[in-house]
């Protein structure tokens, strides 16, 4: 960890009740250690803004280790910034250069209204899961775990799909603001496991319908979602979802 410091110009989306249309404001971020995370850099700027009597920049975050899916912003046009498979909280300032200008904007999608500055409402993702992203089993009724063997390969594939953190970067990255990768990941996770088979049909139909109703766009195979997904979820999950959907629709 050999740290140095850099100076940056930030152009940050500010939007609140007094300024409902929103616009970009410019701030200086000086003496930023390259060991800082992107969010720690915003913390430092917020401390300075507070001292200057300017309201700090609102942004969502919680775990700061790339797993809760709470953080996220479009940084220089890229969801979660330019590093592959990295959430904003795990993006470190060593990947920026002294003198850089950084444009920071919220996720943009009809289904994700802006709450304030960089904070958006992603409740629509919960609604997609409510439409069927579960296996119907009550607590207490389960049989011994090892009576359901799952081939290691399938278990791993299911895990890879289940690794989605629900951050919404796929929606933000997609020109159509589609939630196919998010929905595909959940449908695949469950379809790959024997436990998920009984409810598979209903699940595929209902989740896809919910996605449409909630105002997410269609998939036109841009693959931007895969490119920006911080967890490396593959668009093969979308293909699997489509197969599940077709199977369900025609049987």
């Amino acid at each position, binding site marked *: 960890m050999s740290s140095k410091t850099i100076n940056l110009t930030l152009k940050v989306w500010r939007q609140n009740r007094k300024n409902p249309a929103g616009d970009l404001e410019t701030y200086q971020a000086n003496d930023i250690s390259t060991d800082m995370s992107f969010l720690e850099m915003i913390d430092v700027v917020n401390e300075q803004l507070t001292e200057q009597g300017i309201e700090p920049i609102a942004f969502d975050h919680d775990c700061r280790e790339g797993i809760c899916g709470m953080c996220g912003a479009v940084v220089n046009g890229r969801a979660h910034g330019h590093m592959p498979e990295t959430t904003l909280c795990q993006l470190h300032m060593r990947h920026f250069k002294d003198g850089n200008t950084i444009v920071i904007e919220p996720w943009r999608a009809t289904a994700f209204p802006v709450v304030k500055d960089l904070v958006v409402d992603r409740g629509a993702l*919960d609604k997609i899961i409510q439409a069927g992203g579960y*296996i119907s089993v009550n607590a207490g009724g389960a049989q011994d775990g090892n009576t359901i063997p799952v081939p290691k390969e399938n278990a791993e594939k299911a895990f890879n799909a289940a690794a989605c953190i629900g951050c919404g970067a796929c929606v933000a990255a997609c020109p159509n603001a589609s939630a196919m990768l998010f929905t595909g990941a959940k449908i695949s996770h469950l379809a790959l496991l024997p436990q998920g088979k009984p409810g598979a049909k209903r699940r595929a139909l209902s989740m896809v319908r919910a996605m449409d109703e909630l105002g997410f766009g269609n998939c036109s195979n841009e693959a931007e979602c895969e490119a920006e997904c911080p967890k490396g979820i593959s668009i093969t999950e979308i293909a699997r979802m489509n197969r599940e959907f077709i199977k369900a629709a025609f049987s």
Partner: protein
Amino acid sequence: MTLESKIPSGPVHEKWDRHRFELKLVNPANKKKFDIIVVGTGLAGASAAATLAELGYNVKNFCIQDSPRRAHSIAAQGGINAAKNYANDGDSIWRLFYDTVKGGDFRAREANVYRLAQLSVNIIDQCVAQGVPFAREYGGLLDNRSFGGAQVSRTFYAKGQTGQQLLLGAYSALMRQVSAGKVEIFPRREMLDVVLADGRARGIVTRNLVTGELESYSAHAVVLATGGYGNVYFLSTNAMSSNVSASYRCYKKGAYFANPCFTQIHPTCIPVHGTYQSKLTLMSESLRNDGRVWVPKEAGDKRPPEQIPESERDYYLERKYPSFGNLVPRDVASRNAKDQCDQGKGVGETGLAVYLDFADAIARDGREAIAAKYGNLFEMYEKITGEDPYVTPMKIYPAVHYTMGGLWVDYNLMTTIDGLFALGESNFSDHGSNRLGASALMQGLADGYFIIPYTIGGYLAGTRLPDVDASAPQFKEAEAKIREQVDRLLSIRGKRTVMDFHRSLGKIMWDHCGIARDEQGLEKARQMIAELREEFWENVNVPGDAADFNQALENAGRVADFMEFGELMVKDALDRKESCGCHFNTAYQTEDHEALRDDENYCNVSAWEYTGPDSDPVLHTEPLTFENVELTQRSYK
């Protein structure tokens, strides 16, 4: 008030069955007449909310984050224990019970721990049925690994993302009940008070974090599952919003706070590297299965690790604890790391780190096998530090991680306020003075899926609860008090930011109420916290408005509570004149520098009662008896 633990009679292995039989039942048709508030959507809260709804209760479920799926449980990495004995290596419910009681250094209730060990097996079954993608062997059966403080392999895992997968399982069960109309979820709400009527918990007041509005909700019972308070130290492995406020405000309303000073400092975290740092990142304990901990033998040896020959390295855990080696419990590992650094053998720029080295494991099993087990952890380490742990040993240092203390609860998980239950990390129950790895996930899910559904029924069936609705004066009073505090915070407009105060508090706590404590330091801390708190209320700068999304205001409320709570922790630490588990008072240690308990005077739970802002809290103790595991000096040699 005397503390009644309500532990059922009979042999330890029959207590839970007997109790379940004796508990009154709510008739299935009547369940829909009861409303239950569950605060928290982590493993404990989500599993409780979903299960209570499955039974037919009407549930309202609250969380701070924008979605229940983001609760801090999501970040748990290493795994969850269960006494399945699939590995056929000698595990049993009894052994898990024994390991947990011993690991907790004999400061937990035997009856609770036994029940936890019993239920551990049901948890795995439940999670598999929900579709949790646990790691599997080639034959398709569930795989296990080892964790600290145990000599068997009983930890179930999903790569380094076990918490995520378990929480998504519980969340999916919760979403199923939302769509069934049995659970209503309230995200971006912060509970700021519990409301009592006739001495019973009957509702809560929350702040809507988007609009700033105060909202009141009434119910027949309130279940708290709001997690741990490690963030009192500012730097910890907890998520940023983890707080003590929910439990602390219940404490102020009459719930006793148990063992507040029992804090777990986890041995394997990425070391601190700057004052701007906002949190610390855990490197899962599972890494100690294959990584070897060492420092240079010579103090002040600043050579890079690859230049230090084998003969000049001290694998101090393996040397001192040959039978557990790198897998000693967390308190022991943390204390030893600190000792080595205090002796000047610490490595890295700050000298506050030790090596965790995978070279031997990689040579033995190959890079691929190691990547399969720990790939995501290695990547995370590299992202944060810019160093590749496949090539250079990791540098690690202890960090605040988990709080064993919490609201005092009886065997039914009910606090000293009737109708207020506490689950998961927010209660004090099962881990004594030191939690074993992979046991928090187990406890949260045992509480939520399998305990509260029974015990809350016993309470509701056996209690007359007149109608109370959210327009009752008690709610208005609570709202008015909260409003007053919010207005006060916003009116100060001082010179120091909330984060700055939080950082100062954290430093006091870490320096004086951290890995090792002594009376002098604790006394000093008490005074420093009182001074800091005074300054806070005169000089804090909280920008923005009350009627808005205002993160500085949210934090200010949490830090204000941490300031008061820190004092309670220090008081508790001062009062416990012994060392046990994570509470290490340097005045009480064995010749080998291990924690020296005083079972004659302190074989008990400390439970503190709030008596008002200007008077000292009153201590109550619950004696602990050990009938099944012999009280002995712990040894991991």
